[in-house]
């Protein structure tokens, strides 16, 4: 890290319902001379869903990677000590010719973190991954099936915060709806918090309790109803990837 600090401080005196799980202050990320994120501040409370939106190249993925400590940055990123994280990256450049199966990845995480291995079958069932798919070589999995493996990997161990970087890109409509339903359940039953990078404003209005809008001229953070004004929608409308339909 350049001059940043990512820390896990002692629990605060806040109640569990209002506990701040993530606090970001004055976050900046530079690649060489180009500053992708400048002076960003936001926070995430338990059970909240934070949608991260913005045009291509605005720094959405960079923001997630900075939160995870995968990038050099400046500013403060403070995670609550109780937080456990599940992460689904936008893409994984896996060599599909390796002698690996989906089960190997899930098994590795379960053993590394000493979770009971029966959780693998449970998570796979929840996400709609059959045993045949779990045991198939990764070279035989489609993009959507592999995406489900990554989602199962993130869900393994009941993380308290899920970071999803456009996780539905490779999923079919049915699997996409299945994922939203699952996340809705997780939020209600386990108060799982979610940070979700998306281009789909329908998803934002349906699920997000907070929105972080990244823009080359500066970032904005707030409630969806306050932030998703005509100006933001107009700017995003010019982006070919944005779906503006509601759900």
């Amino acid at each position, binding site marked *: 890290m350049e001059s940043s600090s990512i820390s896990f401080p002692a629990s605060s005196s806040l109640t569990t319902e209002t506990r701040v799980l993530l606090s970001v202050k004055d976050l900046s990320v530079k690649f060489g001379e180009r500053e992708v994120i400048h002076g960003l501040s936001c926070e995430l409370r338990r059970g909240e869903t934070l949608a991260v939106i913005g045009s291509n190249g605005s720094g959405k993925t960079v923001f997630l990677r900075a939160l995870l400590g995968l990038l050099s940055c400046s500013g403060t990123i403070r995670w609550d000590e109780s937080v456990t994280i599940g992460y689904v990256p936008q893409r994984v450049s896996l060599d599909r010719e390796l002698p690996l199966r989906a089960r190997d990845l899930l098994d590795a*995480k379960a053993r590394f973190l000493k979770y009971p291995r029966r959780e693998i079958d449970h998570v796979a069932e929840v996400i709609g991954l059959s045993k045949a798919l779990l045991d198939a070589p990764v070279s035989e999995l489609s993009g959507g099936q592999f995406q489900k493996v990554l989602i199962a990997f993130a869900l393994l161990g009941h993380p308290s915060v899920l970071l999803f970087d456009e996780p539905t890109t490779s999923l079919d409509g049915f699997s996409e709806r299945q994922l939203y339903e699952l996340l809705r359940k997780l939020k209600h039953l386990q108060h799982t918090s979610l940070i979700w990078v998306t281009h789909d404003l329908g998803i934002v209005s349906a699920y997000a309790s907070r929105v972080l809008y990244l823009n080359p001229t500066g970032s904005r953070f707030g409630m969806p109803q306050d932030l998703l004004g005509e100006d933001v929608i107009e700017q995003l409308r010019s982006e070919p990837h944005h779906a503006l339909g509601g759900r």
Partner: protein
Amino acid sequence: MGLQNTSYVYSIILALLFAISAGLIGSFSLMKRMLLAGDVVSHLALPGLGIALLLGINPLLGATATLMFGTVAIWDIQRQTGLATENIIGVVFAASLAIGACVTPKEDLVDALFGNFAPITLLSFLAGIVAVLFITLSLFRLKHGLVMTLFSEDLAIVTGVKLDAQNLYFLFLFSLTVLVGLRFMGTLLAASLIILPAAIARRFTNKMGNFFYDSSLISLACIIGGLIVTHWVFPKYGLGPITVLLASAAFMASVFSKRS
């Protein structure tokens, strides 16, 4: 059994155990796509061997010193500069061979490069056993982090894998494996028994567990074949070259058998 025979038995047992650990580390190296990088690591032993022979001390001590120093240096240069692996490998390969050729006494150069199957002392045998056990147990301990890293370094880091430490640990295990096999295979061929069995095993399995198992078995079969051939068929030739020839023939056979 005479002392000489006992020492030969030590050598045979250690060669067989080396083969098993070479097969294991080779299967991980193939998946990490660092077989050739690892091969070059073995050449780092040559300058140390040469200097130790010049000074009249145990050649393996010299080899250990340059091998371990070089391993850390490669890891650190790559970590700090972000240079492509092949750039560092190219420089290290050429420099190690050149330094080794300059400092190694002419009469010892062939043995240093291609190995020499000779009796070993009980102390060397025990040290070898400890090294092989350490390599095998460490690989099983590292396995879960390594597997996650194969899928995605980011996912591994987020899960808690210390990537830099893991990479250094793996390189160290690779170097240790080379070190155990150095006396039998020489600096030029030691890594061959890490590379070839894994490459053969990969052609026949899509399952990771079978891959480790097959790679070790093939490696073991190659060195047993090498011991048999050099003892009864071509006693003039060294164990290293014959074993590598057998492994190469097995690889070609695997290519053609799969094709047919």
